[in-house]
């Protein structure tokens, strides 16, 4: 193994170093310097992105590096850039929030960077071991981030629940991996795919391994029945963290999911498809129904994010090239619209957990018409109403499933997405249709960085709703990497 193999890995190495540097800087700064550290972290993400462009991109075709541990392909680049963008937006959104809190920003930013590093490895892992290492790096950073408000009971509760269940699911995942290794004698994704393609007998050890890995992945994307940690973790975590874990790690988990199930395990599609079908249907139904009765906006968005994982799973059930790129597009669109919605929640949280109840939004349209219009767009997009990006995302995913013949699954999904309008519009009702004269709405935080990030999300949500072609082109270029093209 020559040293030149490390060159495409430079972005990750740089990010790790930058993370430690920011951690150290944060310790010396204490509770000060939230904005400076955010900018510094954002800068290191930007440098990492440039490095990916310079050395980490598959110039002469897709290949593996570091002894077959990591892929260098367009699929990996797509998800790396997507998760880094999500992290960058969260960093800028959280700066003001951390300033207002009693907690130091250094560790926060460093943990976000470490989680991002884990996500990058998940996006590019070519071996079950490297994938697992990336997943754990991401997950451990998240557990700490959820419990970041260490003096808040809710934050601790969420962190403990998340950690215990997360550890359990990691165990399941590793057990599945061990069964796969026992059955096939390899952990390399390419070799697994080749072995599965070659064999035509049903091997139950193998299938059990695949199913257990699938369960682990379903936990990470918060699909039913492995979703129980989500509402508590989302509610308890500081809102920027909730915003973060609802998009970046979900996108990374879907990257790994796609890499495994539409890549390595694709030859066994007929064996695992029914499991995913049931999971997708249950997730879409349960997520949307449970969200209907939530009075806490963060819990509601938690169930909504469960439902959105269900929509994305439908693309995996389709199991086609279109299913693959539609999920990739969906994760990008979901990232922007969900971050925007959470950005708005941050805006309302002047301190502590204020502004989390649906009723706190009463009469906002009158006082802050611009902010309310932004939230309206995110709610429409999450519900999948055109001309917003959410509609286009759903159109692609549902199209892929109809093409594959899973019409009943799509019928369930579209009816449930109509149901989802009801709870998204509870916020709209409060903002626009209630006067809010009796109960004063929570005052808005005026934070330019936050405003700018929400503005960016609004722009992307509307732009991709009217003209999604460029993102589709990017995602389609990632299809060949998985050998589905």
């Amino acid at each position, binding site marked *: 193994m020559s040293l030149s193999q490390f060159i495409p890995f430079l972005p990750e190495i740089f990010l790790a170093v930058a993370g430690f540097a920011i951690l150290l800087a944060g310790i010396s700064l204490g509770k000060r310097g939230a904005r400076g550290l955010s900018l510094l972290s954002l800068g290191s993400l930007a440098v990492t992105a440039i490095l990916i462009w310079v050395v980490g991109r598959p110039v002469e075709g897709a290949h593996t590096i570091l002894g077959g541990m990591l892929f260098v392909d367009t699929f990996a680049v797509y998800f790396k850039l997507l998760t880094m963008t999500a992290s960058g937006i969260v960093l800028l959104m959280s700066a003001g929030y951390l300033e207002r809190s009693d907690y130091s920003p250094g560790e926060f930013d460093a943990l976000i960077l470490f989680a991002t590093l884990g996500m990058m490895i998940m996006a590019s892992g070519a071996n079950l071991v490297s994938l697992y290492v990336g997943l754990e790096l991401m997950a451990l950073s998240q557990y700490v981030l959820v419990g970041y408000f260490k003096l808040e009971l809710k934050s601790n509760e969420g962190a403990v629940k998340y950690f215990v269940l997360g550890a359990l699911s990691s165990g399941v995942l590793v057990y599945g991996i061990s069964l796969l290794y026992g059955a096939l004698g390899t952990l390399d994704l390419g070799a697994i795919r080749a072995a599965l393609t070659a064999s035509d007998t049903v091997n139950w050890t193998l299938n059990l391994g695949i199913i257990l890995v699938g369960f682990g992945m379903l936990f990470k994307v918060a699909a039913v029945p492995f979703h129980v940690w989500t509402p508590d973790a989302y509610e308890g975590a500081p809102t920027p963290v909730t915003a973060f874990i609802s998009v970046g790690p979900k996108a990374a988990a879907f990257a790994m999911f796609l890499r495994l199930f539409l890549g390595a395990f694709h030859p066994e599609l007929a064996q695992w498809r029914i499991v995913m079908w049931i999971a997708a249907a249950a997730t879409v139904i349960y997520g949307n129904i449970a969200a209907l009765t939530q009075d806490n906006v963060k819990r509601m968005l938690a169930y909504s994010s469960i439902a959105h994982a269900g929509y994305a799973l439908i693309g995996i059930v389709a199991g086609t090239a279109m299913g693959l790129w539609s999920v990739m597009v969906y994760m990008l669109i979901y990232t922007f619209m969900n971050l925007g919605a959470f950005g708005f929640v941050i805006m309302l949280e002047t301190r502590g957990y204020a502004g989390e109840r649906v009723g706190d939004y009463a009469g906002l349209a009158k006082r802050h018409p611009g902010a309310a219009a932004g939230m309206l767009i995110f709610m429409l997009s999450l519900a999948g109403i055109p001309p917003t990006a959410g509609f286009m995302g759903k159109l692609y995913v549902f199209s892929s499933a109809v093409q594959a*013949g899973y019409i009943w699954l799509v019928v369930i999904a579209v009816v449930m997405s109509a149901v989802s309008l009801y709870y998204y*519009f509870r916020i709209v009702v409060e903002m626009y*249709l209630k006067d809010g004269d009796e109960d004063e709405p929570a005052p808005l935080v005026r934070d330019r960085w936050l405003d700018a990030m929400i503005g960016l999300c609004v722009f992307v949500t509307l732009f991709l709703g009217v003209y999604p072609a460029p993102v589709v082109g990017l995602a389609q270029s990632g299809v060949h990497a998985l050998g589905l093209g």
Partner: protein
Amino acid sequence: MEFLQHELLNIICYLPLVGALLIIFGINRENTKAIKAVATVTAGLDFLAAVPLWFLYKPAGPEFQFVIQGKWIPSLGIQYYFGVDGFAILLILLSTLLTFIAVYSSFTAITHRVKEYYVFLLLLGTGMLGVFMSLDFILFYVFWEVMLVPMYFLIGVWGGPRKLYAAIKFFLYTLVGSVLMLVGILALYFFNGPGLAAIGLKGLGNPATFSIPHLFTIAPQIPASLQFWVFLAFFIGFAIKVPMWPFHTWLPDAHVEAPTAGSVILAGVLLKMGTYGFVRFSLPMLPKATLKAVPWIAVLGIIAIIYGALVAMAQKDMKKLVAYSSVSHMGLIMVGLFALDPAGIRGAILQMVNHGVSTGALFLLVGLVYERRHNRMIAEYGGLAKVMPIYATFFAVMTMSSIGLPTLNGFVGEFTTLMGIFKANWVWAMFAAVGVILGAAYMLWMYQRVFFGEVTNEKNKDLKDLNLREQWTLIPLVILAFWIGLYPKPFFNRMAPSVDHILQRVERATQQPNEARQQIAAITKTTPPSAAPSQGE
């Protein structure tokens, strides 16, 4: 001029949007005069921009005219594709006229949150017009859903006491219907293309497209089983919109709670979208399923006619009465359409316009008296003819138009429709005619109770009659009612080619499949080259 004519549909569709943006970003919310002026001018210009369609449309020309076609989302073969036929032109003119009237009639009725009100009203205009112009299924679907949002706000913000309930009910009902329609659209799309693998449905292998004219040409090749399911999906979407019994329950709520202008648009245009969908998509694209569905839809339609009329008769609230009369009238239109007879379809299409005119006007009239008294109960009134003679005259004309008195529009529409129904099945015609008689009964009875006799209620003694602006909101509709009643030929001329095309397509389905292919070739010659994609096999 060339450019203007080529871009005509774009101009008509997006002019209200431009007006809305102008109001959002250009005018302070306190400056209500400027807001009203901009909204009125935009809506008025939009109507004027739509008038050339009436004169420039050539009934002998290609099926779809004023075509604008371009790529939109190439990965799925979605196009930006506008075009209109005579049928769509009638509905576009109606929409632009009613939008203008809705804006013009709201000056005094809406006093709070004026800016948002006119923005939503104009956005609604763009959404409605896009629906009638789109020749790409996804484009159509986008406009179809976009339109729900402003309507939701119009009911929810400026509506009556139960506005929240009515608004979300309207939104959810129509949304459930339309998402199922989307699944049907996707199934057709993949049948035209690669097929639906897992259920073993082989596709035609044509290039991927959502082009509506192209889907017309493959209609005979669609197997009956697929037609059935797609028809069902479309049916739910359109039947909720019409609304057909038993999907009508959102309508009385929405109508009663909506502000006057909202009701006018809802009755005048939004309900027509359901029937437009049946005429444009279900009949010509799914002819085999249509033939099977005829008796079912006829029965549902007849139930709607009788039920709507009987419920209307029992209403104490004028607005609710008019709302239930809509259920009855729309039932007649549905039976007329599914009689699958040239007269029935022509009459039904004309009746769509008529219903927009007369019911729109009735909602305006009820709104005018509500503005004065804040009460719509029939029992509160009596003898209004003495206090408000001009108002009573307008109301009388529109009542007569609604019940189908000769020389007014309702007569021509109802008579032609009934004639078509009679040719298809005389029993249906009998029931439908009973509905027309009941319609006369409840309308005249209401008129009698509100306008005749002595003024019994003290509060009504010094009600002001209509002022000039209020009269002008009604005069265009009165003119239209007389015009259609006395000289409907230009209307029939413009819709004739559309009706012929629909019936040809339905009839083709009953013929031999190998003949069908020649028929497609014949049809593609009559459509513009761009609208007839290659015939794959």
